């Protein structure tokens, strides 16, 4: 299960008693305004969550993986996300069953 716009809309409706139409408009605007700022090459800083930064990448050599033919990768601008300290602390202790033993420092130790 993943969090999507429809659950965020539902949560605004339940938590803040916004009607569905108002909630939908806000959620759409939230992501649209962030996207718009990034499109204008403007960094976005959401305290408590993280920063969306823009990086200009120079042209670099690439290859068509199928034919092996060399094709340059065009210069491009990319979005990167740097999580804030608060979010980092919030997620780092997430106890995924798959990695639980490792995460408490037992990795590589014999369990017998």
């Amino acid at each position, binding site marked *: *299960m*993943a*969090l*999507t*716009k429809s659950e*965020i809309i539902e*949560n*605004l409706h339940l*938590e*803040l008693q*916004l009607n569905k*139409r*108002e*909630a939908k*408009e*806000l*959620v759409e*605007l*939230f*992501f649209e*305004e*962030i*996207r718009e*700022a*990034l*499109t204008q*090459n*403007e*960094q*976005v*800083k*959401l*305290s*408590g*969550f*993280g920063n*969306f930064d*823009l990086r200009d990448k120079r042209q670099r050599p690439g290859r068509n993986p199928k034919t092996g033919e060399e094709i340059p990768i065009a*210069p*491009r*601008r*990319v*979005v*990167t*996300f740097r*999580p804030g300290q*608060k*979010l*980092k602390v*919030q*997620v*780092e*202790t*997430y106890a*995924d069953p798959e*990695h639980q033993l*490792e*995460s408490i*420092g037992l*990795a590589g130790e014999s369990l017998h």
Partner: protein
Amino acid sequence: MTKSELIERIIAKQSQLNPREVEQAIKAIIEQMADSLAAGERIEIRGFGSFSLHYRPPRVGRNPKTGDAVLLTGKYVPHFKPGKELREMVNELD
């Protein structure tokens, strides 16, 4: 653009809610996104991108002051993958 500037821009673009309600709603959205990741749940926003957790295995690090080896436990870090639409929009170089 900071969070408060984002809130101001959204207030200017909509007419149904008062500024206080918009501010509360934006804060609630960000909080729900953080809580979702903290619970190990991905976030998927079409046209924008997805957030997920990446695992960093335990490693031996060093105390930068003393140089002593320290065992660092495994942990999760948030990761964002921009969606196709966002990737294309920011890449329309000016």
